[in-house]
């Protein structure tokens, strides 16, 4: 129905009547912006080897698909719905945003916005409430990516008359019939997603790409912390770095550990403590270096190091992105 080919990437579809005889692959990839996006993915995200290679594969497939279309070869609009499974804080939301950029660059979604929702955004409280709610969200997501976090909450096997089922049906229909209008990414934690798919075969069959997000190693978490500090204009002193290595080891064993998000929260608190330390001595002259450096004391003051384990490690279930 829609003139998808030319919707947003004129460089990829110059409107030529007869297909060109050859394609400069590098140029094509650059024009679509995917070279740049993949480079960012590589550099700005630590680890995630399997994820990165799956994303790269998908990008390649879409690039070739695009070129095949222009060459007039047999091509079918690919199914692009995906599922991202992995523990909290493993980068699912972050990668979804990059994925939207890639899809947009290649013209597989027209606008590239990401609408991130959970059950409460889709499912209503009373009869007749769910369909309009779900449709409202779908309409906003058209042309972009609908990211459904903790998708398994949509389905409540214990409750037969759960309104979630209605939302699921509408979603399935749109995922099937309007594949060129939006891409749905379901996200959630490993085990529960597996169960969800088992009891909702409709979803399983509509999803083309299942991507698993592994937990980060200690070394990767350290790299992540250093990257986050760098982005915020800080760095560890040698002693602080050593302290943080210990911090990671301890924190991983404590409850509510959520991979990179725990690191982000730790970094934020470390900044607080550093500021507090600096301000406690009003009479000294500060140098740039003082402002930039994290001391071991800033790390060691964490309650993670104190006897009672679940202390500051408790991360409120603020699970937004």
């Amino acid at each position, binding site marked *: 129905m*829609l003139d998808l080919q030319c919707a947003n990437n004129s460089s990829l579809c110059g409107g030529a009547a007869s297909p060109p005889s050859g394609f400069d692959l590098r140029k094509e990839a650059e024009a679509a912006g995917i070279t740049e996006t993949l480079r960012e993915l590589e550099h700005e995200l630590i680890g995630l080897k399997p994820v990165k290679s799956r994303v790269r594969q998908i990008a390649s497939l879409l690039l070739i698909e695009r070129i095949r279309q222009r060459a007039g070869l047999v091509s079918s609009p690919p199914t692009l719905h995906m599922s991202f499974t992995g523990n909290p804080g493993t980068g699912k939301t972050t990668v979804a945003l990059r994925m939207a950029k890639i899809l947009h660059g290649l013209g597989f979604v027209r606008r590239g916005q990401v609408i991130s929702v959970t059950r409460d955004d889709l499912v209503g409280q009373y009869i007749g409430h769910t369909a309009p709610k779900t449709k409202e969200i779908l309409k906003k997501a058209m042309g972009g990516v609908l990211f459904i976090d903790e998708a398994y909450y949509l389905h409540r096997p214990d409750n037969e008359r759960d309104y979630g089922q209605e939302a699921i049906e509408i979603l399935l229909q749109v995922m099937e019939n309007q594949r060129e209008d939006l891409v749905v990414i379901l996200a959630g934690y490993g085990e529960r997603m597996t169960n969800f798919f088992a009891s909702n075969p409709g979803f399983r069959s509509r999803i083309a790409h299942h991507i698993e997000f592994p937990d980060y190693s200690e070394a990767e978490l350290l790299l992540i912390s250093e990257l986050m500090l760098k982005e915020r204009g800080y760095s560890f002193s040698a002693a602080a770095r050593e302290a943080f290595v210990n911090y990671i080891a301890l924190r991983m064993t404590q409850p509510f550990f959520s991979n990179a998000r725990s690191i982000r929260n730790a970094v934020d608190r470390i900044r607080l403590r550093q500021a507090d330390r600096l301000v406690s001595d009003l009479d000294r002259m500060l140098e740039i270096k003082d402002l930039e450096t994290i001391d071991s004391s800033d790390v060691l003051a964490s309650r993670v190091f104190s006897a009672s384990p679940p202390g500051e490690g408790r991360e409120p279930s603020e699970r937004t992105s």
Partner: protein
Amino acid sequence: MRLTQGCFSFLPDLTDDQIYKQVQYCLANGWAVNIEFTDDPHPRNTYWEMWGLPMFDLSDAAGVMMELAECRRVYGDRYIRISGFDSSHGWESVRISFLVNRPAQEPYFALERQEVAGRVVRYATRLCPSREATP
């Protein structure tokens, strides 16, 4: 009678692709998009029935097209129009409005005249069912 209300009534009826592009134009301008339908296209009938609430904050016209398809499924035998509403100061009204559906057999308007004092005539425009026999 071919009703010529709306922005594009003198052109052949818009295809869905054309409608999509006009809606996208509205969204790009930040206007809310509204779908309305009626079986009373009298020129002074301002308030057509609303098909749901106006759609705010959409990125892509596909969302509107989805609603339009639904509206046509239910009210395919009526007039349906799409309008773009601009809430910015100094306008705060409709910016564009165009028909996206007509009944298969369009009604027509009879002009009724009442002769009053002098040569003055009072006019009333009355909606009449289509002149073509309904199948």
